[in-house]
């Protein structure tokens, strides 16, 4: 199983319910920081912090539009995360199968 810092940061970014809510909201279309802050009861600075964490792993991109900062879903497709889970499952199922074969051979002696 391969691990890397980006994957750790992606899992961290997704571990917070507010950040998941922001992503779900952006899945319905782009929004300004103010529009994101309101439904979550956050200040602009508060939402900026969450958006910054999502932006670091490309889950969100932002751009200045006039006086506002507009946010939309980023290019991250989370392939690394899904690949990690695939590898994880293969590794553990492989351990169980290997152990099962060991016991069956041992019991057959």
């Amino acid at each position, binding site marked *: 199983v391969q*691990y890397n810092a980006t994957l750790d940061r992606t899992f961290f970014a*997704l571990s917070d319910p507010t950040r998941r809510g922001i992503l779900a909201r952006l899945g319905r279309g782009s929004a300004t920081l103010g529009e994101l802050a309101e439904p979550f009861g956050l200040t602009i600075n508060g939402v900026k912090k969450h958006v910054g964490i999502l932006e670091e792993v490309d889950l969100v991109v932002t751009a200045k539009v006039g006086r506002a900062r507009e946010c939309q879903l980023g290019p991250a497709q989370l392939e690394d995360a899904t690949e990690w889970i695939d590898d994880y499952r293969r590794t*553990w199922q492989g351990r169980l199968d290997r152990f099962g074969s060991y016991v069956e051979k041992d019991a057959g002696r």
Partner: protein
Amino acid sequence: MSDDVRFARVIDAQPEAVFAAFTEQHGQEAFYGDDEPGWIVESECDLRVGGLWSVTFGYSRDELHRHDHVFRVIDRPSRLVVDTTESRADGSSLEFEIEFIFEERDGKTLMTMMQRGLPTAELREEHRSGMPNAFARLERVIVG
């Protein structure tokens, strides 16, 4: 829907034999083994509640992974629960719980592993909330 990540296998032996093999060194090293030449696996186990089962494994001494399992429940020969810390070669770590269940099935043993506390649960929640991206694969991957 459970948040467990679940693995299962029917083993052609009685639960007592499977449980015994799983709690002794050779069985544990088989569990963490690999066919790759030079694969390293070393297991030490203190089988009592609060005891440590420690396994190091990997391709080289320079890049060993380590699992430290602390026994929370020992119900011979049907159940084990451990708190696991996975320490990776890059210095990072992951913590989760594993429950091992050994059930008799027609003279054989259904051995089930359930892991809880992994970030996969967070990802699946994302999938449920309808986030429009590659999470579509996760339900299949996690539920299996």
